[in-house]
């Protein structure tokens, strides 16, 4: 991955974040910074808290302790120590600044590909119909689906749906894009077309926090890789170090070992 992330203060700053579901301690104090223009990928075994962490960043999940800030603004809570939950209007305004792409696409089934993109542009960004339509077409072209603008999600393949999902998120011009296992529900032959779109966004300098099981993709696309297991950050380094045969973290080595046995890395 070329191109250096910029900015001294990180765009996204996660500090000491903890989260429990009932008696299960899912996040046990996570620290993670993402700089403007940086692509950070989180890998690790299932159930390690990767998706939960990602969902905390745009407050689809609440977190119990610690702090998450984007551009200096606390996500989800206000009044510092008092930790008051923000109003729904406030939350909506903040979420508009983070784009998210989901494992199961989650396209609005009653809207066409173009309408899926224009909904947020008109209702949240306040663009006029024509302007929103132009912008939707621009992004549909960018993900190679200009000819599918009028199609409903049910008329698209999984890979096409996910590319619309990406277009929907980036059209909002978010400060950071969150990608939650976006290829896990796809047939193997459709994964490439989706990852190509992500690579082209990275080349444009889009800040991204990615959770993926595509280890090869993580290696090629990321400035930095974070290994998460059992709710903690086990290792955090540029890909070359993570994949180094001298990697000191035992758990990471065995995790990667299982992968390289299955795929040739």
């Amino acid at each position, binding site marked *: 991955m070329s191109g250096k992330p910029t900015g001294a203060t990180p765009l996204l700053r996660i500090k000491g974040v903890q989260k429990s579901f009932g008696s299960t301690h899912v996040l046990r104090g996570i620290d993670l910074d993402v700089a403007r223009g940086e692509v950070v990928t989180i890998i690790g075994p299932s159930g390690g808290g990767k998706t939960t962490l990602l969902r905390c960043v*745009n407050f*689809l999940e609440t977190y119990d302790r610690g702090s998450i800030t984007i551009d200096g603004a606390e996500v989800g809570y206000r009044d510092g120590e008092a930790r008051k939950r923000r109003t*729904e*209007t406030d*939350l*909506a*305004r*903040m*979420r*508009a*600044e*983070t*784009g*998210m792409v*989901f494992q*199961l696409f*989650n*396209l*609005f*089934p*009653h809207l066409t590909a173009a309408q899926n993109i224009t*909904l*947020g542009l008109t*209702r*949240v960004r306040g663009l006029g119909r024509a302007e929103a339509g132009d912008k939707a077409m621009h992004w549909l072209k960018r993900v190679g689906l200009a000819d599918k603008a009028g199609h*409903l999600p*049910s008329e698209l393949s999984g890979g096409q749906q996910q590319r619309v999902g990406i277009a*929907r*998120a980036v059209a*909002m011009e978010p400060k950071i894009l969150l990608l939650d296992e976006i290829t896990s529900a796809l047939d193997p032959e459709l994964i490439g077309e989706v990852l190509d779109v992500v690579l082209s966004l990275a080349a444009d300098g889009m800040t991204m926090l990615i959770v993926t099981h595509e280890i090869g993709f993580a290696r090629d696309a990321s400035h930095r890789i974070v290994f998460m297991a059992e709710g903690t950050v086990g290792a955090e380094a540029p890909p070359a170090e993570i994949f180094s045969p001298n990697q000191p973290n035992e758990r990471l080595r065995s995790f990667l070992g299982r992968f390289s046995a299955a795929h040739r890395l």
Partner: protein
Amino acid sequence: MGYDLNFTLIWRHFDKLWSGLILSLELAILSIGIGIVIGLILAVIYVSGGRIARALIAAYVELIRNVPLILLVYLVFYGIPTVFDFAYDNTTSFVMTLSVYAGAYLVEVFRAGLDAVPKGLIDAGKAIGLTPWQRLVHVRLPTMLRMTLPALSNTFVSLFKDTSVASVIAVPELTYGAQWINFNTFRIMEVYLVVTGLYLVTGYAILLGLRALERRYSIGR
């Protein structure tokens, strides 16, 4: 079996059946329309409201579902005016009753539909920055309505048939027209055969229309 079918007298009075059928349809459309408004509002309150609101709505639904429609019709037409000392005409009274009755069934359909909207779609609405109200209007309700179309078709046809209960308070709808012809001509088999045919054809036409809507709008998942 010394009964000879003779439809002559039925055709002579067919205008009574025809105007009755039109009124039946009007009763159904009005009541379903008002019932949809009641159902939607209460379903939204149910899924987003507090315990007391839920309990009240549940009580309304259970009351209506467990009491025969004919009893409610009597209660509203004869009972309420006696207690509160006012009067309304029988058609208005029946539309009010059937609307409240339809509302109870539709709350259940819409409530279940709202619950069944995939959580991922609501997350997607949140993620692009929609407010709760915008998520309701642009994501939850349109998804829910498309998901509930098959259940709605059945409810609408049932409610159309239920308009026949209006005959007990002399609303001149289709069944009342049939009774009138029966009392005045004694051609009991003929009149009820014709009326059965009219209900069947109309009910089936409604169903076909709604099926067409389903094919057009239902969500293929």
